[in-house]
């Protein structure tokens, strides 16, 4: 990690009231993010996406977000109301979701959607916003920005759509990009291109990236650090290139359950879930205390 943290989270909890008392979808989550690529891995229901949404202020009622500390630079995120969050989203923290087919407006050209973001955050004219949008499209390696500007969401491929999303998210120059399964809907070869573009943008702008994914291989090869989540908690935190040497039995179980080219086993070891993993953990995740 380099420089002071862009984002600091200490003891984050996301609570939904249920019939039998509160359900903690996320608990005891602490981490800090610098100008780096942080991966959050876990299976469905582990709370990884919910954690990302909590930072963006996107937990709908009756869900509650509680944290001892949740700070973006100098801004205390625990005290923001919806209006202040709206100004912050897109401008300082941006989010790329899984499938561009569903996150793009189907009845507005993709270029105009990018320009709209620029107008909203900078109050610019359509003309200036259009120029900025075209530059952004070029920055995400779209060869013919003028043509793509005028296309609708259904006219672009998945890989192109995800580049458009990245362009839209980065046009206001956010400090942090949260990418929630950004490549899961894409083909393997396109995945690499999209990741490479995201990496280039994040590096050249000195941003922090949180990559949320269920794909252990992808996270371990792309990120600098990895947090492994299980049942709402961070059970392990390690350097991404050391993920194969992870120590928590859950992480080890997941790694062992992956089929591997060149290592064909008649039976894949199946994950045995230990009820002990559900117990409350002391907050880990590399937060400086």
């Amino acid at each position, binding site marked *: 990690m380099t420089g002071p943290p862009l984002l600091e989270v200490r003891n984050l909890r996301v609570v939904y009231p249920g019939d039998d008392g509160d359900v903690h979808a996320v608990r005891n989550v602490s981490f800090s993010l610098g100008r780096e690529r942080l991966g959050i891995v876990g299976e469905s229901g582990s709370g990884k996406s919910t954690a990302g949404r909590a930072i963006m202020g996107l937990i709908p009622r009756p869900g509650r977000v509680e944290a001892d500390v949740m700070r973006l630079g100098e801004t205390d995120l625990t005290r923001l109301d919806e209006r202040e969050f709206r100004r912050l989203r897109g401008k300082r923290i941006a989010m790329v979701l899984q499938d561009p087919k569903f996150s793009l407006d189907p009845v507005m050209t993709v270029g105009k959607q990018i320009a709209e973001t620029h107008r909203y955050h900078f109050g610019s004219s359509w003309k200036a916003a259009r120029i900025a949008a075209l530059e952004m499209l070029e920055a995400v390696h779209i060869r013919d920005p003028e043509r793509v500007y005028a296309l609708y969401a259904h006219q672009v491929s998945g890989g192109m759509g995800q580049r458009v999303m990245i362009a839209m998210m980065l046009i206001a120059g956010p400090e942090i990009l949260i990418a929630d399964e950004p490549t899961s809907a894409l083909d*393997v070869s396109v995945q690499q291109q999209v990741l490479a573009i995201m990496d280039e943008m994040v590096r050249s702008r000195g941003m922090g990236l949180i990559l949320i994914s269920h794909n252990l291989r992808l996270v371990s090869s792309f990120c600098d650090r990895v947090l492994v989540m299980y049942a709402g908690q961070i059970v392990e935190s390690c350097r991404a290139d050391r993920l194969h040497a992870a120590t928590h039995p859950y992480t080890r179980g997941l790694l062992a359950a992956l089929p591997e080219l060149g290592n*064909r086993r008649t039976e894949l070891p199946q994950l045995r879930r230990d009820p002990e993993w559900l117990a409350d953990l002391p907050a880990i995740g590399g937060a400086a205390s």
Partner: protein
Amino acid sequence: MIELDRVSVTFGSGQTALRAAHEVSFRVAPGEAFGLVGESGSGKSTVLRAVAGLIPHAEGTITIDGRAVPNRRPRETRKIIQMVFQDPYGSLHPNQTVDQTLSAPIAIHRLGDTERRIVAALAEVGLGREHRYRYPHQLSGGQRQRVAIARALILEPRALLLDEPTSALDVSVQAEILNLLTRLRRDHGLTMLMVSHDLAVIAHICDRIGVMRGGRLLEMTTAAAMAEGRVSDPYSQQLLRANQTLDPGAPAEDIVA
């Protein structure tokens, strides 16, 4: 068991015609597991569906169990070859219990002995009696996929067609389903034809692998050759690289380049 001889599938006609599969030929021996890999739009699922009889193949011959089959499949052919789909959330009827889902094929094929068959099929895929009268929404993704496999197995087919059977599942659940498929193949001598974009998954189940792109079968290879990187076609090599650079332990710089 399954043999394709220059099978082509075309959608539409005239200028807008799209040839989704072009003169695809291969042969799957009884008890063998054969895999097709490729990206979206490569035609792998189209070929699988043509074998299943879900889309009429325009040209070429499909031979199943030694008999060339017409587009309209006779009941006996449908019984010996069954399919498992990708998305267990979409492939089970939401308003029918597991019991109803499993009884339908028995009734259609007039097999009788429903009670015994359902109990046996559920046990086979590792589901308990308590799951029998549940609706799909009361089951997890892995359990639903087990139901889909049970539905395919209940007719005691000789071949299973698998269309990305684990890509909608979590890693730990994927391992369970892959183990189940391996065991079923061993115990019943099932022939398997599997389609996936995940080379590691294909190579885990299948012995021989065909690489598809743009509706054509580019190269026939084996799981062992894939693992050692011995593939000749440039596209297969590219596909292999795209899968391999994401291996654990690979330096991050590799995929940026």
